[in-house]
């Protein structure tokens, strides 16, 4: 009889059968899983305010990963094929990488490596004149391209990004290299013997006939030039540029010529003006009033333009149906044709958070496919002309990333205000008020 023998083997056989069954189930579920409907992600507009802003910020950051040259770290001006690298976009990229590392979107070593590579390119390869980088560079070689000028404002923006990276990676070669690139800049030379800083210089024709002579994004340029440890310009330069004041809907604003939102944002992406007083003027409050005026200007023109009629706002330099334009509102030149830039609205988050979030939520709710893509909000749109930009610009992506970070954590402001050149500029220009010492990177939202 084989009975006893059979009974002894039945245990392992059962276990064997069980494992076979389990393996079968696992294989079938693995094969079938892609065909099962995935649990639908919550629509962007329905996310909590913080999640909503973080998603926009994270998506915008992806631009700098995808559109930066892997060999040089230089960031392309736009997502368009063949676009050269822009030195200002590279500055925003340096800042965005620091934020991404802190948020855990990329690792420390990844961010550090990319930033160091970019700074090495700026130090050794990128073409410059007396430290001033040319506006557009070949992303692969770092050579000047498109006959661009050695640009003062774009150099200031890349330096702001580099110095900020130095603060994030304090005590490392990143900090040393950032300082080296900053100290190399001969700011006095760019004044061309005048009281103001020239906009640029070309090898073929010398200094451009344009100077930074009135309020706009020039503050970051003035701050770095006055605070320079190597070639500082006289502090009197701070009082040389015009501060034209005008009103719109009883809102007093020291306005920029174009009235574009970006002119009220770029300097304040790095500099915290909330507690700085320039002879009775607070530029943070000024930007807040300008942003509200921009929104009201759109509303007041709602009968003429469909975009404004649907309550969308945000007039700033961006792509339009006829090309790139310095759109803006009053006070200022107020060039507009119903084209609105979502990035300009998003970057106003520190000034008018309630209005910004409402506008952006409404946008992604109504036109999710058309306004939002791979890198977050596309550059611009015009409803009356049914025109949608499918392109992204590096500087527009960067300003969103930085401003949202300032709104959520004050991370950029806290670090940038700790820089010695910034302290020196505040002191030399007699700007009153002290920057509150907040804990860097701590969520304040």
């Amino acid at each position, binding site marked *: 009889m084989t009975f006893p023998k059979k009974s002894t083997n039945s245990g392992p056989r059962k276990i064997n059968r069980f494992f076979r069954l389990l393996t079968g189930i696992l294989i079938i579920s693995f094969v079938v899983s892609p065909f099962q409907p995935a649990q639908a992600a919550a629509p962007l507009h329905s996310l909590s305010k913080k999640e909503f802003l973080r998603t926009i910020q994270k998506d915008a950051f992806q631009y700098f990963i995808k559109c930066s040259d892997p060999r040089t770290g230089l960031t392309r001006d736009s997502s368009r094929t*063949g676009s050269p690298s822009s030195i200002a976009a590279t500055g925003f990229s340096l800042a965005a990488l620091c934020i991404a590392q802190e948020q855990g979107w990329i690792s420390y070593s990844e961010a550090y490596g990319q930033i160091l590579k970019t700074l090495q390119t700026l130090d050794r390869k990128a073409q410059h004149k007396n430290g001033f980088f040319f506006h557009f560079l070949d992303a692969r070689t770092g050579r000047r391209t*498109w006959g661009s000028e050695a640009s003062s404002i774009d150099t200031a923006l890349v330096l702001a990004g580099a110095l900020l990276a130095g603060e994030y990676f304090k005590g490392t070669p990143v900090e040393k290299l950032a300082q080296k690139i900053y100290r190399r800049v001969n700011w006095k030379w760019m004044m061309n013997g005048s009281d103001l800083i020239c906009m640029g210089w070309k090898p073929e024709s010398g200094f451009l006939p344009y100077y930074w002579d009135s309020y706009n994004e020039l503050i970051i340029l003035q701050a770095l030039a006055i605070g320079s440890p190597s070639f500082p310009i006289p502090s009197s330069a701070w009082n040389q540029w015009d501060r034209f004041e005008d009103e719109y809907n009883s809102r007093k604003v020291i306005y920029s010529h174009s009235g574009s939102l970006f002119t009220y944002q770029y300097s304040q992406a790095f500099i915290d003006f909330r507690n700085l007083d320039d002879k009775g003027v607070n530029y943070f409050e000024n930007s807040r009033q300008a942003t509200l005026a921009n929104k009201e200007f759109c509303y007041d023109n709602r009968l003429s333009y469909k975009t404004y009629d649907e309550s969308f706002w945000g007039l700033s330099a961006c792509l339009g149906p006829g090309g790139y334009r310095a759109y803006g509102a009053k006070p200022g030149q107020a060039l507009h044709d119903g084209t609105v830039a979502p990035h300009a609205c998003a970057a106003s988050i520190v000034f008018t958070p309630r209005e910004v979030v409402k506008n952006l939520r409404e946008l992604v709710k109504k036109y999710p496919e058309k306004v939002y893509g791979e890198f977050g909000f596309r550059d611009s749109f015009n409803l009356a002309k049914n025109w949608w930009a499918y392109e992204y610009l590096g500087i527009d992506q960067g300003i969103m990333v930085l401003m949202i970070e300032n709104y959520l954590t004050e991370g950029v402001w806290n670090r940038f205000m700790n820089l010695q050149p910034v302290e020196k500029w505040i002191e030399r220009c007699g700007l009153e008020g002290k920057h509150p010492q907040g804990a860097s990177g701590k969520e304040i939202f």
Partner: protein
Amino acid sequence: MKNQRRRFLIDKPLQFHVMGWTFFILLVVSTCVILSLYFGVWSLTLQEFSNENIQTNLQLASRIEDYDAARFNQTTAEGNSGPRLAFFKDTEKFGDRQREMIEEILEMSHRKLIMLILPLLALITVGTIYLSHKIAGPLFRFGKSFEQLGTKDLTIRIRLRKHDEAKTLSTVFNQSIKKLDEAMGNIKKILRENRDPSALKNDLSKEINEFRTTEN
């Protein structure tokens, strides 16, 4: 002139063989170089002037023009003096004209290439004859010398021309023949001078034993 050869074809089968190979190798190498350069350069040029690239570059030029206009406060909503988007609708025509120009340049360069290839072929032919001559000349001389050696003539010496190949070989050959000549001369001298058979045997064996031969 001394050592001047009067004929270029000294050893026809050998020279034709060498010429054939040299010509073939030179032709293959130069064809490869010309073709790779030709297609490398032109493919890049044609790529640069493709409709797509022209359009991209024109649009980028317009964008940069727009940036300048926006920065230096020269913009209006309709546009400025720079190229506008409407202009790019004509890009295709522009591209066609560019291609016409490229075709003209291509045609010209083809003609020039043919004009270049003919003298190149002639140059290769002359070069192979010259090369074969430089190789075949010495080989011919060596052959003749060995023939002469076969007739037991040890007075032969090879004298090559100034720029001929195998100079070292001819020097070694001449030195060896000279030693053989001297040894044979010595033997002859012993035979002439020795009358005593035992001394003759001794002297001859001493001289002959210096030769190493297959048969002892």
